[in-house]
């Protein structure tokens, strides 16, 4: 008998009084956890294959199922957690690099939760968004440094290309390939109805989605998958992906198994081959080289579209952002270390990069200090989990936020962090036709619209409470924030006072 070094992570608890042996759980589980034993007329479980995606729990008609953490415990150590021990067993058994998905789950400080928002009392009255207009429209792009006049004395009204958003929220980059076609359709339709944008990621744009082009941001990354003239012309903006918060400093790798016919067509690579996005752009070794890629894209699209440069939040992100602002980019997207991913090496995801809150504050301050804040808009990304996080991000200096994980939650994701297996039971991070069809884009898009509209309403209420009636007046308004339980250094970097000050 081979020795199994570690037990199943989860335990399937089946209430046999309730179970009617309808076998729905068996049919629904792509991990093949549930099996029916005809001899004993009994449902059995293979606990070790369970990823705790909660699909079976959600569909069980008699609520007979519970997935709970396995209580079996290794000897406790504050230094070697059970998870760490299991990871070492996995590597000893395989010789492989640990691969994970979604955002960093480790116990690092979440600065959003240590920042409090102000409200008006007595002297400056709050505003009720139900009876007074509240402006959440945002324009992303370069803003003129001052008023220029034409030779005839009239005002020069030329503006650089910009994006117009009804609310300061965009869907972050998720490629077709990492997520399913139905998930992409849901995002595209929701962005269109909401008057905001979704982002193709580096997977090209499916022919069926060209119709949503004016609400699409097309991405150009080191692998250049699916990038060609029509693609660039179709998008409302072009995003150059230099890095991703979940995996700063490394590239992307979509396994060949996920490159089925339709994905192959969209990425324009043969079926079954790995889609590798190298860590660096091999033509970018400097800000000057970045400028060259930006302008080659601007030339190719006749200066009609803003160019976004997306970077991961890393230690010297403020200096990097300053370079990007001078490189001709219209918008900088900064992705914090808690950002999601369809697959990333565990050690990179959990240990590389810095929190978006600190990165955002540092970048905004640096660009202000250098007098170039108007040269670029800033999109903050990497775990903006709620409307409150969004408000805090804007007050710290963001023009808008990218949301990825909340959008996936709207589509049914339960954050089991197993996207890289390609067997997503919710039809999101998979290309298996039988799983993809579980996600109905008619329902999915409506849930996304609901989510973002609800957030936007909350943003208005929070703004109203502060006596602010326009998102423009909230941006960079750090006086509206106070820290709680933070050190002076943290407060200095965030540029906020402590609660009570």
């Amino acid at each position, binding site marked *: 008998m081979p020795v199994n070094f570690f037990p199943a992570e989860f335990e399937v608890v089946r209430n046999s009084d309730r179970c009617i042996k309808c076998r729905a759980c068996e049919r629904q589980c792509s991990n093949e956890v549930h099996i029916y034993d005809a001899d004993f007329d009994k449902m059995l479980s293979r606990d070790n294959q369970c990823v705790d995606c909660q699909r079976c729990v959600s569909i069980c008609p008699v609520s007979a199922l519970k997935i709970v953490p396995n209580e079996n415990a290794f000897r406790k150590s504050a230094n070697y957690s059970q998870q760490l021990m299991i990871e070492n067993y996995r590597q000893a058994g395989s010789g492989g690099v640990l691969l994970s998905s979604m955002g960093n789950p480790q116990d690092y400080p979440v600065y959003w939760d240590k920042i409090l928002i102000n409200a008006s009392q007595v002297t400056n009255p709050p505003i009720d968004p139900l009876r007074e207009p509240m402006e959440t429209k945002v324009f992303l792009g370069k803003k003129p440094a001052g008023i220029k006049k034409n030779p005839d004395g009239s005002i020069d009204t030329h503006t650089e290309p910009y994006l117009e958003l009804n609310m300061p929220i965009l869907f972050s980059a998720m490629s077709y390939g990492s997520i399913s076609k139905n998930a992409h359709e849901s995002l595209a339709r929701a962005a269109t109805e909401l008057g905001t944008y979704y982002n193709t990621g580096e997977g090209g744009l499916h022919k069926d989605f060209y119709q949503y082009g004016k609400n699409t941001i097309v991405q150009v990354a080191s*692998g250049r998958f699916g990038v060609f003239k029509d693609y660039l012309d179709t998008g409302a903006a072009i995003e150059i992906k230099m890095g991703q918060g979940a995996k700063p400093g490394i590239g992307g790798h979509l396994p060949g198994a996920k490159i089925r016919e339709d994905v192959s067509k969209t990425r324009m690579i043969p079926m079954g081959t790995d889609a590798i996005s190298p860590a660096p752009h091999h033509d970018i070794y400097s800000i000057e080289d970045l400028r060259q890629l930006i302008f080659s894209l601007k*030339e190719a699209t006749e200066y009609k579209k803003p160019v976004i440069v997306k970077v991961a939040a890393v230690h010297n992100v403020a200096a990097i952002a300053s370079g990007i602002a001078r490189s001709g980019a219209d918008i900088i997207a900064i992705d914090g270390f808690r950002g999601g991913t369809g697959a990333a090496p565990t050690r990179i995801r959990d240990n590389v990069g810095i929190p978006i809150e600190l990165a955002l504050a540092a970048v905004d301050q640096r660009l202000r200090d250098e007098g170039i804040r108007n040269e670029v808009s800033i999109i903050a990304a990497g775990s903006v989990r709620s409307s409150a996080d969004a408000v805090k991000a804007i007050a710290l200096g963001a023009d808008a936020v990218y949301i990825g994980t909340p959008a996936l939650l709207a589509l049914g994701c339960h954050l089991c962090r197993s996207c890289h297996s390609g067997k997503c039971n919710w039809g999101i991070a998979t290309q298996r036709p039988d799983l993809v069809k579980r996600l109905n884009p008619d329902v999915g898009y409506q849930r996304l619209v609901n989510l973002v509209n609800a957030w936007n309403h909350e943003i208005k209420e929070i703004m109203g409470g502060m006596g602010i009636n326009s998102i423009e007046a909230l941006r960079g308004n750090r006086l509206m924030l106070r820290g709680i339980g933070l050190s002076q250094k943290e407060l200095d970097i965030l540029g906020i006072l402590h609660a009570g000050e």
Partner: protein
Amino acid sequence: MAIEINAQNMHFKLINEQIRASSEKEVVINNTIGQRFIGSGCVGKDIHIHGIPGNALGAYLTKSDITVYGNAQDALGDTMNDGTITVFGNCGDAPGYGMRDGKILIKGSAGYRAGIHMKQYMEKIPVLMIGGKVGDFLAEYQAGGKIIVLGLGYEDTCPVGSFCGTGMHGGAIYIRTDILPSGLPSQVDAFDATDADKEEIRPEIELFVSKFGGNADEILASHFFKLVPDTKNPYKQLYVNN
């Protein structure tokens, strides 16, 4: 009739505006002095360049031909879509980055990082052809297409630099030489090209000699190495699900 553009002291933006505005397919650019991005995203033109074009010539090129009667610089044909770029001289670093289809023909030599991440899909098979020699990091991450290095005039040495084919997972490299590039990575298979292998590149060689002179049969009579990846999934065994 061709439209003529005098590029002397002209900004690249203006050059491209004139190319796009041209009612004629054929555009001749004279006195080019290093302007970047010429023909970037250009569709359906035949551009002839006299002088020295700058970086990122013919990026995202679509259904267009570009001929350079001199040397080209860095990032030639970046993410080129189709058409042909012909250079009657040498070119700088990173020609054909992420190239998707079409042909880049360099009469002379090319710099570092040529043909990085070239790819292919169905009938779209890009070709990067270099008459002379080429620097380090040729065909890194190559995912498809044909890269041909003829080494004409460099018969006594290997015409390809170090670190050739690192991360290569598709396509093929053909090198006319007796000396195998040193330090090939383990996932690249190199072997003597057979007559059948050489026939695969006969159309490209014939196109090359039709533009730059020479004899296709003579070139093909030389010894070639053919380099291909030994797997489409070079990273597969690296990971364990966690």
